[in-house]
């Protein structure tokens, strides 16, 4: 009974947050709605007895992703003239809801045909120790692949977001020569 009421509150926050995210005009309100949705999702992970994923979700999705997004939004998207003019927004949302509904029904029918039900958890399920044992025995290759992926994402983000003029060769040599002249 308690679990059901917690689930109801968390799912209410999750759905309201995600609906607010796609319907607000100002980007900053969308980002805050997304923050609420991610916190509720972390609560759902805790309800499914995955305590480590609860912490990882709060640290990464809330602490890193949303805060980084908010930083970019504050620097670019909070000015009125930058936000695109969308007069028919709710009309398009209605049309795309009609388009997406059959797909959602298909996914739900496929999932519900499992006839699954929750059982009592085993000893040590969801704890950090069993997670670490599993991660460093069977899943060690995907783990290393993810580390390489994160490194390449970091390099890629720096290369994409840089300003061209600081990295051109001739400019570099010009600056270098000037510095030497100044000496």
């Amino acid at each position, binding site marked *: 009974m308690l679990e059901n009421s917690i689930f109801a509150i968390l799912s209410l926050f999750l759905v309201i947050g995600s609906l607010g995210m796609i319907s607000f005009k100002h980007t900053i309100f969308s980002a805050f709605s997304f923050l609420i949705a991610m916190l509720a999702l972390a609560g759902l992970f805790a309800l499914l007895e995955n305590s480590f994923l609860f912490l990882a979700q709060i640290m990464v*999705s809330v602490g890193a992703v949303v805060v980084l997004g908010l930083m970019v939004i504050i620097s670019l998207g909070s000015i009125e003239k930058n936000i695109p003019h969308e007069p028919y927004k709710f009309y398009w949302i209605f049309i795309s809801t009609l388009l997406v509904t059959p797909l959602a029904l298909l996914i739900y029918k496929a999932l*519900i045909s499992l006839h699954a*039900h*929750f059982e009592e958890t085993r000893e040590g399920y969801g704890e950090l120790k069993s997670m670490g044992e599993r991660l460093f025995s069977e899943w060690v290759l995907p783990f290393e692949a993810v580390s390489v992926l994160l490194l390449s994402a970091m390099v890629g983000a720096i290369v994409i*977001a840089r300003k061209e003029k600081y990295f051109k060769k001739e400019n570099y040599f010009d600056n270098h020569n000037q510095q030497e002249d100044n000496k």
Partner: protein
Amino acid sequence: MIPEQFFILSTLLFSIGLIGIVSRRNIFVVYLSIELMLSAVNLLLVTFSRLDQSMNGSVIALLLIAIIAAEASIFLAMIIQLYRSKRSLDSDKFSELTQKKGQQ
């Protein structure tokens, strides 16, 4: 608490993310919708892990959280680069790769 509740919630989140991608033009909302779809998949993985009583699904969910972080960094860098070239956040203006030479 039954698994069907989580299945409904996950399907709903995925659909809302898809609707956001299709119907909005603000590039930030598109980005947050992609994140929402990935999170819906994450919720489904954790539900399956709880049903299966093994940690495999949780480990995939943990790796998926790392991939979400990588995607966020790349996408925000792309937004900054596109804003620099077009001075706008409208995703319709970022369609120049689809234009043939001579158009526009």
